């Protein structure tokens, strides 16, 4: 048997202001060199467990912790403060808030300084860590100038430099585009082989991780362990259970489940059986509506360059592209939030400049990436009612409108809650509610599914689909190719501030240069390709 590196014994954690514990009676044993996935719906205590394993709890915990956590055989409470960092390192989700220095080298050195590594050894370790993650060229760069993917590599380098035995990754790719995500996972796979650390990964999106994580620990909503065992086997045989828990399954597994097949369910699209219905799809070219918003030669600072684009009534458009390519800027210019430095945007044929703010807002809604940014009232009801206040609609009618909108967004019964106290999914739906209550015809959404678990994503998309069926035009920014594949009529791909692609999604999947856009094929498309692949021999012979 290998050496047990992490062990918890009846670990229970309760936060001060909460009734029920966030982690309940957790018993885990992790051996050196294992690669473990921690899975569970949001709020099931995975991040709290991370804090227990890196020694932050019980020291910094407002609440109570019972049970024991052993790292390398020693109880975490017996370690000196800071000592655990030699054993356990964590890469967090948000690339912007896990750094405290300005430049890459200083940041990597920061952890080593904390460990009192002598200067000469420190210089060597910084270079070594940079070389491991392939960021040597960016040693002197400012962290703020790096892309999201590069920042996460730096975060990884910071931890690797300290040579911990256990590496915990807390949703490390949540903020990254598809190509950066794949790069990060490949890098990790390679480093794991080379350095042999023990790996714990918290992740919602399983594709990409399946090939090298061996074991899964599933947490249920009440903070207990639901299952602990081999990852593949669990997905193959207990997919239905995971699905009801609100966990996002890999595409192949989900498809198999939806088609009511018997376990074992496949994990990869290559293992999916060919369905009889999946033939070359013929697309009904939908008749385009009237031009709603159009943009002529729009340029903004050095971010957007000379973009021409038209949005038609009734379309569902996806904007995709690399992190930092200008997607948000473009959508803000289209929505009239940002004035372009040159060029014109027209709404219903009239330049935006000639629209009064108030009239414009009745036409266009914009849901920001962080829903909290948009909240201005102290209760859910007032939040939704706010834009109706000055609309001249009778009080009673306002009330019914607000109630209808709340019901539509599944927020009934929350009227008196403070918007900031809602869950992530509810916050997002509330921000959508505020943007549709005034009967806006065009809705922009910036990363609508970001930070949400499978259940709230599904609820949100169902809601948008219903609105779209009622004739609302939707423009969404997203990294998720599956969403693009499923919902969009048209994709705009932005590359370095220019419109690099503007056509139907099927045409994008057929594009040779998908990787240069930092995009990947959606799983359904990968599936189709594997089928074609299998068929090819018949065709050629």
């Amino acid at each position, binding site marked *: 048997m290998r050496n047990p590196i992490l062990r918890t014994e009846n670990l229970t954690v309760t936060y001060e202001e909460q009734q029920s514990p966030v982690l309940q009676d957790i018993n885990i044993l992790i051996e050196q060199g294992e690669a473990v996935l921690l899975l569970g719906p949001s709020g099931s205590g995975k991040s709290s467990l991370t804090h227990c394993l890196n020694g932050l709890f019980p020291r910094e915990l407002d609440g109570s912790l019972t049970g024991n956590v052993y790292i390398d055989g020693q109880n975490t409470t017996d370690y000196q403060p800071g000592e655990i960092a030699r054993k356990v390192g964590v890469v967090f989700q948000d690339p912007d808030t896990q750094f405290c220095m300005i430049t890459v080298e200083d940041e990597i050195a920061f952890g080593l*300084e904390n460990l009192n590594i002598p200067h000469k050894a420190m210089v060597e370790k910084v270079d070594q860590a940079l070389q491991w993650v392939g960021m040597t060229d960016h040693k002197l760069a400012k962290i703020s100038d790096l892309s999201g993917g590069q920042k996460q590599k730096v975060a990884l380098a910071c931890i690797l430099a300290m040579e911990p035995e256990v590496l915990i990754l807390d949703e490390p790719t949540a903020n990254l585009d598809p190509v950066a995500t794949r790069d990060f996972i490949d890098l990790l796979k390679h480093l794991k082989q080379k350095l042999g650390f023990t790996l714990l990964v918290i992740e919602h999106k399983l594709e990409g991780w399946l090939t090298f994580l061996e074991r899964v620990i599933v947490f249920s909503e009440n903070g207990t362990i639901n299952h602990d065992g081999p990852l593949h086997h669990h997905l193959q045989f207990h997919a239905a259970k995971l699905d009801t828990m609100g966990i996002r399954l890999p595409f192949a597994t989900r498809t198999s489940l939806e088609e009511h097949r018997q376990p074992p369910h496949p994990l990869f699209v290559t293992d999916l059986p060919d369905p009889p219905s999946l033939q070359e799809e013929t697309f009904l070219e939908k008749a385009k509506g009237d031009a709603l918003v159009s943009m002529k030669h729009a340029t903004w600072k050095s971010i957007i360059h000379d973009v021409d684009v038209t949005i038609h009534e009734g379309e569902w458009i996806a904007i995709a592209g690399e992190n930092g390519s200008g997607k948000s800027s473009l959508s803000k210019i289209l929505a009239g939030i940002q004035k372009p430095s040159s060029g014109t945007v027209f709404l219903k044929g009239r330049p935006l400049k000639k629209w009064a703010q108030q009239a414009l807002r009745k036409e266009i809604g914009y849901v920001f990436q962080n829903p909290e940014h948009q909240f201005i009232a102290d209760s859910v009801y007032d939040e939704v009612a706010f834009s109706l206040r000055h609309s001249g609609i009778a009080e009673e009618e306002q009330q019914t409108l607000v109630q209808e909108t709340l019901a539509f967004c599944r927020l009934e019964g929350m009227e008196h809650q403070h918007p900031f106290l809602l869950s992530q999914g509810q916050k997002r739906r509330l921000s959508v509610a505020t943007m549709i209550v005034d009967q806006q015809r065009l809705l922009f959404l910036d990363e609508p599914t970001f930070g949400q678990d499978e259940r709230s994503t599904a609820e949100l998309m169902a809601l948008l689909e219903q609105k779209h069926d009622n004739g609302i035009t939707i423009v969404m920014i997203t990294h998720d190719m599956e969403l693009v594949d499923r919902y969009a009529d048209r994709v705009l791909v932005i590359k370095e501030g220019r419109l690099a692609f503007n056509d139907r999604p099927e045409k994008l999947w057929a594009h040779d240069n998908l990787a240069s856009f930092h995009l990947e094929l959606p799983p359904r498309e990968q599936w189709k390709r594997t089928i074609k692949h299998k068929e090819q021999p018949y065709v050629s012979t």
Partner: protein
Amino acid sequence: MFLHDLNPTVKALTIIGLVFLLAFLFDPVTPLIYICGTMVVTFWFGTFKKKHYVYYFLPFLLFAFGMFWTTLVFTDKSTASEENLSLFGINFPAEDVWVATSLGLRVLAFATLSLLFLFTTNMVHFILSLIQQLKLPPKIAYGVLAGYRFLPMLKTEFQQVLAAHRIRGVNKPETWKEWIVQYQRMAIPLLAGAIRKAERTAVAMESKGFTGDRDRTFYRPMKIQRKDWIFPLMMFGMLGITIALSVYFGYFSFYGGEL
């Protein structure tokens, strides 16, 4: 360049010392000469965008002039001499003009010294030097550094919240009351965001083994070398020569309790 390579703590202490001494000089000639000297040193031994220096200098110039003008207009008229000077068509006693000029130039002298520091010092190096030379507690120092990183993020977030509120139909504030209400509204998401960010950063720092302990090694050791003493010698020497010159020509006056 010489100024950039100096130990930041030595540089800062020198400048504080100079400001203290300059505060006791009460004639306009000495600070004027010293201002010129400081500028020459800044431009000669520092590398930075000269245009930016001008941008930073202008508000100080305006402030100095304001100081000069208010002193001139609002002080009691001096009766010590009969001599009058005409400025902008108004007659002022010559002695008042003299005092006001010295006050205005003193502000400028402080400004040029501060700009010398600002334009030739890396903030991170300054803070690292404060930890290593002046034993500033790392807990505070690294907190300041992390906060320094946050500033641009906070600015972006402020703009985002502003845009997000505009699209909700919050109009541009027109009265004071609306203005206050708008900023109250913006404060909540900004504060919530800032607290969350700060907490995440703190957790990340701790999980990298940061304890706030003074006993740590440094990737960038900040040492005081022999060449670092050239700067205080040069600057205090320059002040000495300036004072000597103005004494020689009979302009010098030291603070003697005047107001």
